[in-house]
């Protein structure tokens, strides 16, 4: 019996950051057209960074395919969104005399579509993922996923979030039971109740916060809200605990062709990674802003002399001496630059370290069974993840 396979992680911050910045810039310059290439390239990097048993995962998605899928989705969705939005706005003002209802109804109208798009997106991404040359895949089932999601969400909302683990389990099971690796179907075992324990800290944190809020409002003692200082961080930590331990439980009960999984990811790890990551993102954003400001000051100094910076600080701040077009260009560049930078920093400092946490603690059990798994045919997917692209939902990566 072969030993368990450990997973290596090969991602590094500098190359990822520059890849994100380069592709982001090209996306801006092409008014968004390059985004299909950007996503593909970033996925290739992220996928290849995860190396179970030392062999990297592979993403073989084609940007042209994604573009085609997107165009396909636009043709279909433009009708739906254009007409439906209009009608909803009309009904909202006719019956409710405000536009909140329009937004709410619009959202409700599009929501099922979002679930549909998410399933199709996951199907495409899996169909273009390989490991050891063998393709992953997913059976059709988007409509089933859509109505189940709606029902589960309703149940969860009615239970004020308490039944969240239940929804998580059943939707995961639906997806996993339709997932293939090669010619072997994957299977999600276990029961939804096994996800209650991972939720315990979140229950405590959110529960006590809600209770405090309720008591503070009904007794009109706002001072009580000071307790949020304890309960809110607990709730947030509870979320990372949930993510880690629900992943563990769900992984342990998955199997494909006899191969099993084990995860040692810790909630603490995730919590500090998120905290540290976002702090670094903000700091680097601040650093970037300072850089822009200093450059601006340098240019100004170059044009009007250094002394004038101190004398005319107000003028420099209100930029009355620079031509309007220069201000506009700087403004636009700054605006887009911020977004680009923010995106790249988030990938580098948050997304990648989090993926690393999960990857490095993942083990494959009974890897000998891999020799029995054979190749599956390529899934020719006409619309790729077009709907997800058009609706701006789908995988974060």
């Amino acid at each position, binding site marked *: 019996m072969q030993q368990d396979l450990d997973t290596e992680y*090969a*991602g*590094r911050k500098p*190359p990822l950051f520059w*890849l994100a910045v380069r592709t*982001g810039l090209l*996306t*801006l310059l092409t*008014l*968004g057209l390059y985004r299909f290439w950007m996503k593909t*390239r*970033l996925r*290739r*990097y*992220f996928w*290849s960074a995860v190396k179970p048993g030392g*062999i*990297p995962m*592979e993403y073989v998605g084609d940007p*042209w395919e994604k*573009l*085609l899928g997107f*165009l*396909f989705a*636009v*043709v279909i969705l*433009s*009708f739906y969104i*254009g*007409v439906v*939005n*209009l009608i909803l*706005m009309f009904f909202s*003002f*006719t019956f409710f*005399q*405000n*536009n909140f209802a329009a937004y709410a109804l*619009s959202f409700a109208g599009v929501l099922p579509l979002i679930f549909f798009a998410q399933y199709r997106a996951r199907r495409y991404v899996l169909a273009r993922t*390989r*490991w*050891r*040359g*063998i393709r992953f895949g997913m059976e059709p089932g988007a409509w089933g996923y859509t109505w189940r999601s709606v029902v589960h969400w309703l149940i969860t909302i009615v239970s004020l979030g308490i039944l969240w683990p239940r929804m998580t389990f059943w939707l995961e099971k639906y997806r996993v039971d339709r997932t293939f*690796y*090669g010619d072997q179907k994957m299977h999600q075992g276990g029961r939804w109740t096994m996800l209650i324990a991972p939720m315990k800290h979140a229950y405590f944190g959110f529960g006590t916060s809600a209770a405090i809020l309720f008591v503070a409002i009904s007794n009109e003692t706002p001072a009580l809200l000071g307790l949020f200082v304890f309960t809110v961080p607990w709730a947030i930590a509870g979320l990372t605990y949930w993510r880690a331990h629900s992943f563990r439980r769900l992984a342990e009960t998955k199997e494909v062709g006899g191969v099993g999984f084990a995860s040692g990811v810790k909630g603490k790890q995730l919590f500090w990674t998120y905290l540290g990551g976002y702090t670094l993102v903000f700091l680097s954003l601040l650093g970037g802003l300072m850089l822009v400001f200093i450059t601006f000051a340098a240019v100004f100094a170059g044009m009007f002399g250094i002394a004038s910076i101190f004398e005319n600080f107000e003028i420099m701040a209100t930029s009355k001496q620079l031509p309007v077009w220069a201000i506009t260009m700087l403004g*636009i560049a700054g*605006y*887009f630059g911020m*977004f*680009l930078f923010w995106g790249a920093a988030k990938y580098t400092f948050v997304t990648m370290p989090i993926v690393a946490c999960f990857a490095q603690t993942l083990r494959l059990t009974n890897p000998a069974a*891999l*020799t029995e*798994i*054979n*190749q599956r045919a390529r899934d020719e997917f006409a619309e790729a993840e077009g709907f997800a*692209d*058009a*609706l*701006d939902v789908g995988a974060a990566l």
Partner: protein
Amino acid sequence: MNTIPEQYDTFADFADGKSARLARVGVRLEPAVAPDRLHIGLPDGQAVVWPIEDIRQLPDQADRAGLVLSADDDQVSRLFLHDEAVIKALRGLAQNLHQRKPVQNKFRLFKWAIAAVASVALIVMVLVPVMADQLARILPPEGEKALGDTTYENIRTALNETGIAPLKVCETPAGLAAMRKILTRLNPDDDLPYKIQVDILDHEMVNAFALPGGRIVFFRGLIEAAENPEEVAAVFAHEIGHVVNRDPTRDALRAAGSIGVLGLLFGDFAGGTLILFLANSLVNATYSQKAEAGADVYAHGLMSNAGLSPAALGTMFERLRAKHGDAEGLVAHFAAHPALSDRIEASISAAEGFESTGPVLTPEEWRDLRNICGTSHIIEGTGAPTPNTVRDGNGNGTKTGGQFGSGNKLLPAD
């Protein structure tokens, strides 16, 4: 020793793409003897030979130390190479490592691109405006009023320059009374299912606009730029025309439809809201030019019936044209109004053979109106109002600021 080896031998991992088994293979490269092939020795004794010119490297890989290779014609098998020396040699020999697959089926892509653009164009230019038109007519008055109130609050907040509170409404009682007197003279009540509500916002923009549900907004800048109360009355009549024609309601509904669709196309790259705004402006502009002309026609009729000269609209435009220039071409298209000279002409021809039945406000009332925003904006020498004549220039030094939201404004903004 600096000799280049004649033969490279190393081990690597190989996935044949038929099963998930990973094979440990022997890799041989002989640059001197057989530079055109890579020899892969499988564990069962068999061998796979890859022509060097067909070898491709997987792009954008995280692990820089290793190399993942595929052969062009075989889509699924992969060679995982780690030996530095072999990798270096291979990079030197293989010229096509970075070659990408050519684009499959360009024609299909092109076809769908055309379909997508046509589809969006059809929806945004034809379907949505037509539906908006129909729906605007059947939207009940309460609904229209609610729509107008919501939009009004949004605009006040958006325009405020101090960024602290929404824009101030000018409420000097004497000024408001003067405005009401103008409205009474114009008398549009028969044409509408709701009362006209007028507000003056404390902003230097020289403009006025109408919102759904009978709400009309003037900017202080326009009151200051007018030379006599007849001009204010003319603008008032024009805005009432927009309300009667349901232009603002149609616009709001049309915007709801178009923005969603245009958002689809541009996605959310770096918050591409700017591009979205521009695109929406362009669509907006064609639509509103008809609306402006229609409102002008209504205004001429309303003014004549009230015993006021329709030419007042023209004289104001004339003055502002001298100040801001006639917007032709692309700017005109964007600026949501027919070319000013056309409107001036239309106004003057509507006034042919017209006789006035007296001024709409007394000089005192006119002064009250001009000071509606309080003493901080008193105009020098507000004596008798100057009568309607076509003239040039009127330096009031107002900064008109930028465009916002949808059409139904009277004049172009700079």
